[in-house]
Each structure stands twice: as C-alpha cells, then as structure tokens.
C-alpha cells in the first residue's frame, strides 16, 4: 500500500495528477481553438453542398482595414502597457523598499480594492465621471479649465486612461513582489562597492526586477489587446479595435468565418512577439559568449597576467 502510494507520487506518475488540468485545457481551450481555426479556413458552397478549403477570409483581412484595426489594437495595448509600467514601477519601488510596514499594507489594499469590482463596473464609473453631466466635467467647467462644449469622453486619451486605471494593479503587483523579495544585502553590497543610489538602481535593482517587469507587461498587454468594453464605452463609435470587431462579427453581422480568421491573426500576433523576444535573448546570449571568448583571447594575448 505504502509502496503503491509512493509510486504515485514519483515523478514518472506525476502526469496522473496533471491530467485533470490538461484535460480541462484540452476541452475548453485547445478544442475550441481548433474549431475556430477550422472555421476560418473552411467554407461551405451552397450550390454544390460541399465544404472546401479557403484562404479568402485571411486575404480579406490583409487587404482591408481589418489589419489596420489589429495593428491599432496592438498599439493601444503597447501604449497601455508602457504607461502602466511608467506609473507602476515607482509605486512598486516605493512600496517595496521605502514605505513603513503599516502604510504598505494600507496602500497595497487600496491598490487591489478596485479590482474586487468587475471591470465593466469600473469602466461605467469612469463613464459617469467623465460624461457631460459627470462630476469631473462639471468641475472642470466650473473652474473654467474646459469650455462647456468640450467632451471628455470619446477620445484616445480617455481610452488609455480607462485601460491604465483598470490594468495598473496587474503591473504593480508582480514588480512589487520581485522587489519585496529581493535581498536587501545586494543593495548594501552595491553601496559597499562604491555605487551611489542611482548606480545601484541601474546596475542591481532594475536588472534584478526584470522578471517582475516582464510578468507585468504580459499581464497587462494580453488582456488589453483583446479588450473591447473599455474602448467601446469610453471611446464611443469613433474608435474600432480588434476585440470589438470580433464581437461585432460574431454577434451582429454573423460572419463567423471572418471573425474566426480575425481572432486567429490576433492571437498569433502576441505569440509572434514572444518568439521575437526569445530570439532576441538567444542572440544576446550568443553575443555575451562571444564577448567572453574575446576576453579569453585577451587573456591569451596577455600571458603575463597568468604568470
């Protein structure tokens, strides 16, 4: 009995335990994804009553405005991630390295608190604050900062504002986690070796926090790439993004095949980006190896150093 139990817990049989998760992923993610992919390349000929393979919808996307919409969404996601990063890093840094313990807990709580409400509710809150009769509009008009005819809603800035306010915690938390966990002795060692605060930040703190930054960028970029509620509510009909186009294709115009093709391309884009990042890392690693090779050659050329 004991032996059997131990066998189950060995590495070889660990796949038994991962089965439910894999099965779940397979049924609810990979299979629908495969259906989506099939949908985008197979069409039905009503005359012959036959299914046939086609690249029509992809051609359609690449030769029309759709591809521009995808790139526009990509840009919005990138801007959101960048703005989030710029705001989140100082906040996370302060929280992790400077603030007192009680203050820290309070700040962290107030950061996470808005995420307890649904994203849609958050966006509606912004909507009511920014609309013509909303508090912010009223206040800015009352102080004569904006004219009564000026609209706060339905512009790019407001979309970014909404996106950033909703996704900011997802950037702050991973960076905070990494900085908090970082051994403070590295800072002491750096100072001891002659680095001032700025040099310590540049050479130790920031490089060591990069895993958190990458995680934050992923957590913000991916959902904001497919986000459709925020641009729709805060941007009005003026701005069309990838997410809202897909919603439109599936729910309103009922052109599921075009929607499927749009979804596939949109999903491929971040994956392509990730491949680029990995490629870049591989190249950098090779560059490093070449550098250390050069260094070895330098040593060989200066044999007297070896004695």
């Amino acid at each position, binding site marked *: 009995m004991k032996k059997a139990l131990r066998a189950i817990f060995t590495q070889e049989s660990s796949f038994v335990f991962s089965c439910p998760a894999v099965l779940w992923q397979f049924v609810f993610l990979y299979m629908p994804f495969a259906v989506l992919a099939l949908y985008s390349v197979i069409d039905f000929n009503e005359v012959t009553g036959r299914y046939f393979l086609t690249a029509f919808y992809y051609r359609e996307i690449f030769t029309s405005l759709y591809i521009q919409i995808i790139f526009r969404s990509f840009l919005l996601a990138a801007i959101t991630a960048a703005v989030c990063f710029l705001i989140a890093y100082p906040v996370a840094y302060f929280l992790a390295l400077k603030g007192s313990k009680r203050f820290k807990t309070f700040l962290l709580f107030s950061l996470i608190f808005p995420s307890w409400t649904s994203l849609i509710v958050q966006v509606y809150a912004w909507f009511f604050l920014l609309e013509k009769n909303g508090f912010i509009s009223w206040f800015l008009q009352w102080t004569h900062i904006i004219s009564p005819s000026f609209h706060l809603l339905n512009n790019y800035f407001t979309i970014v504002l909404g996106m950033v306010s909703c996704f900011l915690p997802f950037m702050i938390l991973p960076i905070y986690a990494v900085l908090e966990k970082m051994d403070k002795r590295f800072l002491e060692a750096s100072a001891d070796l002659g680095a001032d605060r700025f040099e310590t930040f540049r050479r130790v703190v920031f490089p060591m926090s990069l895993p958190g930054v990458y995680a934050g960028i992923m957590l913000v970029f991916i959902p904001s790439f497919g986000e459709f509620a925020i641009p729709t509510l805060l941007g009005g009909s003026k701005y069309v993004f990838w997410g809202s186009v897909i919603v439109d294709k599936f729910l309103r115009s009922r052109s599921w095949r075009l929607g499927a093709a749009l979804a596939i391309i949109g999903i491929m884009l971040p994956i392509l980006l990730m491949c680029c990042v990995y490629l870049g890392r591989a190249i950098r690693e090779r560059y490093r190896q070449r550098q*250390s090779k050069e260094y070895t050659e330098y040593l060989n050329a200066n044999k007297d150093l070896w004695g």
Partner: protein
Amino acid sequence: MKSIRLERVSKSYDGELIIDNLNLEIKAGDFFALLGPSGCGKTTVLRLIAGLETVDAGRIFLGDQEITHVPIHERKINTVFQQYALFPHLTVFENVAYSLRVRKMAAETINARVAEVLKMVRLSGFEGKYPRSLSGGQQQRVALARALVAEPEVLLLDEPLAALDLKLKEEMLTELNQLQDKLKTTFVYVTHDQFEALTVSDQMAIMNPQGDIEQQGTPKQIYEFPVSRFVANFVGNTNIIEGRLHISDRDYQVEVEGLGMFSVYTPTEKLWMIPGCRLLMSVRPEKVLISKKPREGFSNSLQGKVVDIIYYGRSTQYRVRLKNGQNLIVFEQNEEHFPQESIDWDDEVHVHFQKENVVLLEH
C-alpha cells in the same frame, strides 16, 4: 593599508544600546580578528566601520582621516559579506568588475585588474559562470575578489567562512593568511569561532555579550594570559577553580576548600591581588598531566577519579573528579599507539600542573 580607530562609539537599535562607548584601535596592515559570542554587537562594529550604519555618538577614523560621516560608497573600505551577497544576475567577471565599472574605468584596465585578482584567488577560467553554479568555496573566493579588486585600504570580513565545512574552512584560513601577507591590506575579521580567530589573526580583540572589549592582544597573549573568566572560557577550554589568595614573602598560594593549598605564580601583580581575597584559577586542560602513579617535579599534584573519557583521535579528554567534588578536565596527547599505562573509567589517578600554568583571575 591604513589603520582604523573607533573613539567612544555608541550605537543603539530600537532603543536598545548595542555598542556603548567603544574604543578600538586596529593598526595598519594587521590581520585583526574581532571575536565574540553571537549577538554581542561585533557585526554592528563592522557595519559601522563599513558605513552601513551610522554612529549615534563617537568618531571613526581611517588613518588620520575622520570618516564618521563619509557615505558608504565614498569610503575606501570593502566588505566580504556573510552570505557573500554576490549579484545573481551578473557573471563572475561582472561581479568582480562591479566596483571598477561603477568608477567608470576603461575596459582595458578593468579586464587587466579582474584577471589579476581572479588569478590571485585561483578562479581564472570562471569568468563566464554565474554565482549559482559555483560551490560555496568558489563563491567565497569571488566575494573576496570582488572586495579586493578596488584595492581598499581596509577589508572587512563578516563571518566569511561560517557557511563552509571544516576542511574547506581550514584551507580558506590558510589562503586568507597568505593573501593578507602578500597584500598587506588591513583585514578586520569578525567571527564567533575562536579557532578561526586564533589561526588567522595577528591581533585579536574579545568582545563580551555586553558589547565591551574585554581584552586585546596577540592570539598567544589572549590564549595564555586571559584577563577575565569570560575570555578564559570563550577562547579555548579551561578549568576554573575558586579559592582564596595567600601571600607570604612574594610567594603566592591559593587555598581551595577541600583541596588544600596550591602554588601559583603571576608575572604581573594586579591591584586586586590582596591577601585573603577570593579569586579564580584558570588551568588549561592540556597543561595538566594525568598519570596513575604520582610524579615528581610538579608544583601542584592532586588525586582524583576518572569519571569520563572522550577519545578525539589526536588527543583524549579525561574528566577527573577531585576530592572536593569538582571536575577537572585534562587533555592528553595521543603520542603513541600503545601508551605505557592505559587509564580507564573509575581509575584512581594523579593530576599535576606547574604553577606557571595557572592564570589568576579576579573573582
């Protein structure tokens, strides 16, 4: 190579006074060991010298220059940290080059200096490796190289060998000693391990749990002539016997209850040594001879019964119960395979020691 001087330095954390009015002078070029039990504040002293902490009161000098308020990154003092604190995201080369990069030195100079110092700690060829892939001893040497590459006036070592096993520790001690001989940099070595301190240092200071320095001197002075019960007990093993002093015509004797009179000797007379005063005798276990038959030529001979034997390989420790019930610890070198007389548990034995080997301590 410069000296370090602490003048009336005080430091407290959270209202608790760790260092109170401490004076300490470390000569230039010394290998200085600061020895004390855990939590006595010796690491605090090191952090004050490094600049990782600021003093509440008092002054710190590096050579003739006062550095009390010089920020840490401007002090020409480097530290080897207890757990090394090597930067995990940098290679061995970049770790060692760190202080040179921060000072914006030319790449050529950096290459040459890093190569030189890595060769010195016998790590040439490890430049491209990351700290996590190195063994404890190698990490230790990277930490050493990183601290030495900037050519500090003073090198601080905070329990640098605590994480290494005994064999490696002994090796590293020898290496540290040779390195210091070559560089002549002032080394300040903080440890709670009396063996490390005795082995490695030219000069050492003993800190008591209250954060005061009880004695400062060469390892030999401290081991042979401890000035207090704390020092005698903390550095090495010792037997402490309580008694009352008798002085007759420059002859010192100590009367111990139940054991009679002991002949003792003191190289220097202290103020507290007045006839009739209570005092402590400290006798190192290895200075006591144990035998089954009585021996001639010893100032002090006693009888007792063996209650405990521990075999250490190169020596054997006997615990002998004396007539007054006190236990005396005796070390015997195991010089021969088959000693003339084997001593066993419960054997009646004689123990002898010379009066010159007794150190008198204030009660």
